């Protein structure tokens, strides 16, 4: 029961905040709602027994990336930007496209659930929560043993990002 309550709470929070993110005029407000959405997602992760990911979401996404966003918003004088038109003329197109996309995926779900043959796709064997148990330890072991190469490549990605971003932002390097 409590699980359900929490799920709907977090999911609702995430969706409402997400909607507010794309509709607020003021970029700072958008950022705040994005933070809320990300925190709600972190809650969802927690519910899904991804403790480590929960805290990664908070430290990296909320405490890191969003700080970056807020800094940039404050750097690019947004008081001026506030008086400009915030939405472009693609709104309708976007709405229709999004609806079509949503309908398509929803339909696929329904079809899959109705159709006994196709249902195999979603009837993947269900594992138990206990298998995710000492979460950090598991993540650590899997990350460093099975995904060692992607991990090293990630460092190259970070290196490139670091250099690229600094080159972009700094006038004279």
């Amino acid at each position, binding site marked *: 029961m409590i699980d359900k309550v929490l799920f709907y709470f977090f999911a609702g929070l995430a969706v409402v905040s997400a909607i507010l993110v794309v509709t607020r005029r003021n970029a700072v407000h958008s950022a705040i709602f994005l933070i809320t959405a990300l925190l709600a997602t972190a809650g969802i992760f927690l519910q899904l027994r991804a403790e480590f990911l929960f805290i990664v979401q908070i430290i990296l996404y909320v405490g890191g990336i969003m700080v970056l966003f807020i800094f940039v918003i404050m*750097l*690019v004088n947004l008081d001026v930007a506030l008086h400009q038109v915030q939405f472009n003329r693609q709104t309708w197109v976007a709405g229709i496209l999004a609806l079509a996309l949503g309908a398509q995926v929803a339909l696929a779900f329904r079809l899959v659930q109705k159709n006994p043959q196709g249902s195999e796709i979603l009837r993947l064997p269900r594992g138990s929560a206990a298998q995710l148990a000492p979460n950090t330890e598991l993540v650590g072991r899997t990350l460093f043993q099975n995904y060692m190469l992607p991990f090293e490549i990630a460092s190259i990605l970070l290196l490139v990002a670091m250099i690229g971003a600094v080159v972009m932002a700094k*006038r*004279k390097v």
Partner: protein
Amino acid sequence: MAEIPTANFPNVETTVLGADEIILNMGPQHPATHGVLRVKLKLDGEKVVGSECIIGYLHRGVEKIAEHRSYQQFAPYVDRMDYVAAVSNGLGYCEAVEKLMGVEAPPRARVIRTILTELQRIASHLLWLGTHALDIGALTPLFYCLREREEILKIFEKYCGARLTTHAFRIGGLQYEAYDELEKDVERFCKDFEQKVNEYEQLLTENRIWVGRTKGIGVISAQDAIDMGATGPIIRASGVKWDIRKAFPYAAYDQYQWEVPTGKNGDTFDRYLVRMEEMRQSRRICLQAIENIPTGPIMARIGKVLKPPPGEVYHSIEAPKGELGYYIVSDGTTQPYRVRIRPPSFINLEAFDKMVRGHLVADVVAIIGTLDIVLGEVDR
């Protein structure tokens, strides 16, 4: 300060997006501007590319007041200019009027004047040190300094009944005879003081943060300092060995042995060192002076009503902040025709813009502190 020539400051890299800079206004109600100084800073990021001092918030028209008071009546007013060094102000004024009248204070009066003025210099420097350290973030020296300053103020209080705006001297000499234990009090203070100064130095001089915050900050070369008319510790820290007490000795300074400390780089750290050393030298003068206070009268023979002959005189003394000059024009009446005060703080403050460019906002407070201005004197 219409346009800021950034071209002269090659180190100033434009780090802000776009062309426009921020104007940051510090003061008049700001914790670090020592009163009601207002500084408008043109910032590029956190770097100062230009500044403008806006003063006059404390302007009382002291020079105008002088024209409507008799010579003696005006004497207490000068105490209110540099209110942390009232004794020095009074000394300058009394000596200027004496010079205008062609009289001279008796030797005993001059020695006592010297002692009190040097104590005042120590007191003023102590207050400077405390607030300067506080600006840079060291909380504790302020309280130590005030503790020592308190001892000096106690001596003043015993001598003339007032602590801050003392009006200690009269034209022609002294009103009050030195109280019985003056020598003992001064000696006791001076004995303790040596160790206290060393204590402050221990707290600050070797401190990496303090050195980092003051070395190379607010540099002003000897040439610039002379050009900007800076006097007192500022010019000495730039390497000019110049002190009015040596150049044109007044009071009883010619009787004592002491040194004029100078610095090399003219930065905030050197000014700090110079002032610290000045305190030691003042202590030295005091110790010499109390050893032999001449006996005799304390007041020259002057009438009750002062009527200096027509003419003019300029007299200056080495106040704690620099050259404090009085230019007095007499028209032969009992009231001065014109009194012009050359305030050291005012003119030293003029060098502020030169010192501050290219530094960070945080250095602005260090530079204001090192200038040791008193707004009562700047604005008069």
